[in-house]
């Protein structure tokens, strides 16, 4: 068995390059206080992978230290993968910074491996140019290397040197490399102590003895040293085209006509998904009008969409667009209707609860709520998730209908871990229950005065300047205060200048029997909530 002829694009210092740092600036990416990658300039000063941050900084005082962000590395690598993908469809990404394609087909099409390497080099340097200034497209560029060999392992090493290893020469090419390049620290340490220092020595050992002495890991290492593939290349399949669209000619401005077209479109989309064994939980409905307006909205479903579900949502959405208020309505008929499945997952069917339970929402309720979303928009129908907080409005988080409801306040569980998840974390200074039944979305401006008509203030020590006697809401009539308590100062998020709020709260009962929660913030009294 011989290894597949493979081309590898390798970006040696990818974590540094992904952060947008040119090679001539000394920079290192650290994770858990250890250097995981360093730029060329930093390496020249002696910064090595695995050093402590402080050690690295002492070797190179001007070192730019960057925290590792795997998400950023993967995102930044995507253009490179796409550039390579234009030459051959089955690109395998080992990890951000290294990707491989089999060369057999592409090399023949583009006129040989030499030509392919040059073309890919140009494409990759174009892709990287968006991140760092690339001065050269030659093979000694510090940011990337392209290599071709039999097998991915040999090709990766070849890419580091910018070489094309001739067919069947991989074993000879690898023979002189130290065993450390296998990147199996424990095994290579043992091999070195046994006197096996080069890959050629490992490759020459009898296969059965290597397996008996070093186990499966040793056998894999020997296969690599012999220039064979660890496993066949597992290329990523190009994502299937799942978008269903239909052009409407003549333009449609009636809901029923458009809904009729949508029905076949939904059927079409569903068939495509079923053929691939997929189900979709979110679908984006897009429409274009004759005047070039672009309408788009995302729809969620707690189970997989069936054709009837999709068609129904398209009809509601079209109803919302075409018979909405004059401001939101498109000015011309629809010419294009498009369905984009947004969250596609393997179809695992759907199990409903036996006695209600998990299934929770019955079909009828889900339809009614989705219908209202179609009229007013997906954010118009919400359910509440209660969490921690001090003021009545902070304890509530509103989740649009269809989005997952995650219980509990994220910050409280993150801080206390799983130790105290059941008990509510303390919120010192929160207003004690009963809570107000009406929490004004914007505080109503109020005036609070004492018996002589002077405005009530709260001192720096948290005391009221006088006994509150009368209250006027929104410049309304004065009403006497019959009972009050407070002030309860709350100094929240002082560490964040943008979210910092300093308030003092007061509970009052007025002569007409109503009770209110007042708050003094920035010198102004407001009715924060009403106990209705």
């Amino acid at each position, binding site marked *: 068995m011989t290894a597949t002829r493979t081309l590898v694009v390798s970006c040696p210092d990818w974590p540094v390059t992904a952060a947008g740092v040119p090679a001539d600036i000394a920079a290192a990416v650290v994770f858990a206080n250890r250097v995981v990658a360093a730029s060329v300039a930093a390496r020249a000063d002696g910064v090595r992978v695995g050093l402590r941050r402080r050690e690295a900084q002492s070797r190179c005082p001007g070192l730019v230290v960057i925290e590792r962000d795997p998400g950023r590395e993967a995102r930044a690598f995507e253009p490179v993968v796409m550039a390579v993908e234009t030459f051959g469809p089955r690109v395998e990404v080992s990890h951000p910074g290294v990707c491989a394609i089999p060369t057999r087909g592409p090399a023949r099409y583009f006129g040989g491996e030499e030509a392919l390497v040059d073309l890919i080099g140009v494409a990759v340097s174009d892709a990287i140019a968006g991140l760092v200034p690339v001065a050269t497209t030659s093979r000694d560029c510090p940011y990337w290397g392209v290599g071709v060999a039999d097998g991915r392992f040999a090709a990766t090493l070849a890419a580091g040197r910018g070489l094309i290893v001739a067919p069947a020469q991989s074993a000879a090419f690898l023979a002189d490399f130290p065993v450390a390049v296998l990147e199996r620290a424990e095994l290579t340490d043992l091999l070195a102590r046994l006197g096996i220092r080069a890959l050629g020595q490992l490759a020459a050992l009898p296969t059965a003895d290597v397996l008996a002495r070093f186990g499966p890991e040793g056998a894999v290492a020997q296969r690599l040293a012999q220039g064979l593939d660890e496993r066949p290349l597992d290329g990523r399949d190009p994502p299937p085209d799942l978008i269903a669209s239909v052009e409407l000619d003549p333009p449609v401005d009636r809901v029923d006509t458009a809904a009729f077209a949508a029905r076949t479109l939904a059927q079409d989309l569903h068939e495509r998904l079923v053929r691939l064994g997929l189900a979709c939980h979110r679908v984006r409905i897009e429409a274009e009008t004759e005047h070039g307006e672009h309408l788009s909205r995302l729809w969620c479903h707690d189970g997989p969409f069936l054709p009837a579900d999709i068609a129904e949502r398209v009809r509601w959405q079209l109803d919302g667009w075409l018979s909405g208020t004059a401001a939101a309505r498109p000015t011309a008929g629809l010419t294009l209707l498009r369905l984009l499945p947004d969250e596609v997952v393997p179809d695992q069917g759907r199990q409903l609860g036996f006695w209600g339970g998990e299934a929770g929402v019955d079909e009828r309720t889900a339809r009614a709520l989705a219908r209202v979303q179609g009229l007013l928009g997906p954010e118009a129908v*919400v359910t509440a998730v209660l969490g921690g907080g001090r003021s009545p409005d902070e304890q509530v988080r509103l989740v649009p209908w269809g989005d997952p409801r995650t219980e509990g306040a994220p910050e409280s569980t993150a801080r206390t871990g799983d130790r105290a998840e059941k008990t509510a974390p303390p919120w010192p200074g929160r207003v004690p229950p*009963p809570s107000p039944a009406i929490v004004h979305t914007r505080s109503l401006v109020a005036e609070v005065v004492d018996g002589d008509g002077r405005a009530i203030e709260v001192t720096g020590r948290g005391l009221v300047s006088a006994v509150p006697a009368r209250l006027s809401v929104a410049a309304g009539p004065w009403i006497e205060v019959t009972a009050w308590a407070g002030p309860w100062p709350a100094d929240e998020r002082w560490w964040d200048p943008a979210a910092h709020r300093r308030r003092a709260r007061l509970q009052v009962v007025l*002569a007409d*029997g109503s009770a209110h929660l007042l708050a003094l913030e920035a010198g102004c009294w407001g009715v924060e909530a009403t106990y*209705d």
Partner: protein
Amino acid sequence: MPLAELARRVRPVSLAGEQRLEVVPALSGLMPGGGIRRGSTITVASGPAGGATSLALALLARATVEGSWCAVVGLPDLGLVTAAELGVDVSHLALVPAPEDRWMTVVASLLDGVDAVVFRSPRRVRPPDIRRLASRARERGAALVVLAGGVGARHQPEPRRAWPGVTDVGLAVTTSRWTGLGDGHGCLQGRQVEVVAEGRGAAARPVRTRLWLPSPEGEVALEQEVTVEPQAASSPRPAAGLGSPPLGGGRGWGPARGGEAASSRAG
């Protein structure tokens, strides 16, 4: 799940008039049949002292716990922590805070799918709209709970004017008194309210009760047993069927009880 519960869930179909959404025991005395009859329209009102929102939430609490879905339309300032404290399962509460000018369509659509819809009647409601919604509720077996007036409303209309249609049960908080708050000390703990229910049919005779809404322990509890008033009350009353006492003065719409109304008018 206890066997009795299972038996209740799987029992055969009952008559439309017997199908009810359950309410907490403290409120069952106010409702004809001890629950919210499906398909009925209920108005909940209060004077300037407030209590309508809490009463409406307490009314629906049991139904949401039982698994019914309720929708709340046009109350952007509803305190959901209070709802949870009064026993409402907020995961079965769908909120449409801003239906804008399409509240009529929204309420009608929701009546199709949920068991109860609460909404605050807008400033102007046309009688045909009311008839349409009431018949929709009756047809779909959903309860329509209308908040009329209350502290949160900008205007304080008489419930009959706020909802000039047929009401099966009209609930009104006539008096409300908070406890626990002193002159510079304490904090709000409980509230004693007096609720009057009257309507048509089985609810034609006004029923009066005193409740804790909530009690210092945080529950909705009876403070005083339900009393059924004699048909001929001392104060003039609108024709039976339009369920609300006349506007009494300063302190809500309770039948004018001279001394108290006069004293609170000074406030």
